[in-house]
C-alpha cells in the first residue's frame, strides 16, 4: 500500500517569542556539535523609536518537495522518503559539499566530528514512533505545528487552509514544506539586512 502521507511544518510567527528553545531542543535531540545548526532563530529589529518592532524567524531545512540537493547529490546519499522527509544516508555521503553549495536556504552543514553532511530531518526517528519533532514538542508558545498536509483533518491542513501562509524563497521552485504565518519580508530577506550591515 502506498504511503500517502506528506509531512510538513507550520510556524505561526504571531506566537513565536524568539526564546531559542527550538534551537536548543534540536541540538539536544540530535547531538549536533558546537558551531553547527539544523534549526535556528534569526532575530531582526526594525524602525525608529517609538515605532519599532522585533521579528523572529525560526529557520531549518524546508524538506522541499523538489529538493535541489537531491538532484545534485552525486551518490544518492540524499533521498526522499515516501512521506516527504528529505534524508541523508550517513554511510554513503562522501562529503563533496555540493548539496551545501546548491541549497538556497543554507540548511545543510558538515558535521565537524563525524565528517558528513547533516540537516533537519523533522526528527524522523521521533516521527517514526508517533512523536512530533523535538522543536515542536518544546515550543513554549505552541507556534510550531507538525503533521500530514495530505490529511484534510489534521491541524496543520486546517491551519494552512484558514490562514495566509508563506514559504521562504518561493521563487526557487523547490516547494518548501515549512510554512509560515505572519512572515516578515525584511526578516526573510538576507540581502536587505546584509546591505544594512555593510554600511
Amino acid at each position: 500500500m502506498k504511503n500517502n502521507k506528506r509531512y510538513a511544518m507550520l510556524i505561526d510567527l504571531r506566537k513565536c517569542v524568539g526564546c531559542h528553545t527550538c534551537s536548543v531542543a534540536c541540538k539536544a535531540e540530535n547531538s549536533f556539535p558546537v558551531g553547527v545548526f539544523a534549526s535556528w532563530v534569526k532575530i531582526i529589529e526594525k524602525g525608529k523609536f517609538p515605532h519599532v518592532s522585533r521579528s523572529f524567524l525560526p529557520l531549518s531545512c524546508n524538506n522541499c518537495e523538489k529538493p535541489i540537493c537531491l538532484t545534485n547529490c552525486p551518490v544518492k546519499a540524499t533521498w526522499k522518503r515516501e512521506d516527504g522527509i528529505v534524508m541523508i544516508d550517513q554511510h554513503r555521503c562522501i562529503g563533496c559539499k555540493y548539496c551545501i553549495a546548491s541549497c538556497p536556504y543554507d540548511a545543510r552543514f558538515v558535521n565537524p566530528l563525524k565528517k558528513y553532511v547533516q540537516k533537519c530531518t523533522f526528527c524522523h526517528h521521533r516521527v517514526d514512533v508517533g512523536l512530533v519533532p523535538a522543536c515542536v514538542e518544546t515550543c513554549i508558545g505552541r507556534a510550531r505545528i507538525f503533521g500530514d498536509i495530505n490529511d484534510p483533518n489534521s491541524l496543520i491542513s486546517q491551519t494552512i487552509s484558514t490562514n495566509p501562509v508563506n514559504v521562504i524563497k518561493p521563487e526557487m521552485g523547490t516547494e518548501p514544506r515549512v510554512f509560515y504565518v505572519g512572515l516578515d519580508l525584511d526578516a526573510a530577506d538576507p540581502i536587505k539586512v546584509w546591505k544594512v550591515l555593510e554600511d
Partner: protein
Amino acid sequence: MDIQVIYNTPYYIPLGIFIATYFYLTGISAGSFVISAVTVLGGKKEYKSIGKIGSILAPVSLLIAPIFLLIDLEQPMRFWHLYIYLQMTSPITYGTFLLSAYPLNGVLYAWALFANKEKTAKILGITGIPLAICTHGYTGFILALGKGRPLWSTALMPTLFIVSAMVSGIALVILIASFNNFFFTKRKDVEKAEQEKKLILNLGKFMGATIVADLFLILNDILVLLTSKTEEYHVAQLLLFGEFKFLFLGIEIFLGSIVPLFVVFFPKTGQTLRGNVFASLLVMIGVFAMRLTVVYAGQSVPLH
C-alpha cells in the same frame, strides 16, 4: 527603514581554494589538449613540436586536478561511491566518468604522438576534443546547477568556463613552447627555431582572440546580473565595487585580460617571444583570479 540583525547563525563557505584550483587545472588541461589536437589534425610537420607540448600538459594537469577534488572531500576514502551509486541528474556523476575517460585518452594520445603513430594520434585527437570540452564544460555545469547562488546559476557559466579554459591552456602552451624554443631548439637548429617562433607568435594572436571572446562573455554576464533580481544585482556590486573588486577588476580584467591583449596585438611587443611570454604569464594569473572570484564571490552572498 532601520533594520538590524540581532541574532543569526554563522555563515559558511563550503567550497574553497581546492575547488578553484581544480577548475583551473582542468581548464589548462582542456585548453592545451584542444590546441595540441588542432595542430596535429592540421597535419603540418612544423606544428608537431607544439602538439607534443600540449599533449604532455593535458594529461599531467588532469592527473593532478582530481587530487584536489579528493582532498576536498570530507570522506576521501569513499570516493569509489561515485562509481557505483549513480545519480544521473548530478553533474558530478557524469563528471566522474569524464574525469576517468579523458586522462586515459590523453595519455594514449601523447604516447601515439611521441611514438610517431600519426593515424592513431589523429583518431585519439578527434575523440579527445569533445572529451576535453565536456570535462571542462561539466565543471561549469556544477556551478550553473547550484541554483541557490546568484552568480553561478546562469546558462553562461559552462561557455564562460570553456572559453577561459582555452585562454589559459593556450597561455601555458606558449610559455612551455617559448621556454623550449629559447633554451633547447635555438641551440640545436637556428632555422627550426625561427619557424617555431613564428608558430608561437601566431598562437599568441589566437590567445588574443580567445581573450576578446572571454571579455565579451564576462561583459554579458555582468550586464545581465546588474539588471536582474536583487541577489544578482548585489553579487554584481560585490564584484565591481565590493570586496572582490581588486581580484575581479584589478587582476582578472585589467592585468589578466586587457594588458595581455594590448601586449599581444601591439606590433612592437606582439612580434617578440618575450612579449608573448609576458602576456601568457599575466593570462595564467588572470584566469586563476577568475576561478577564485567565481568560487568565492558566488558563495559570499548570505542565504539566510
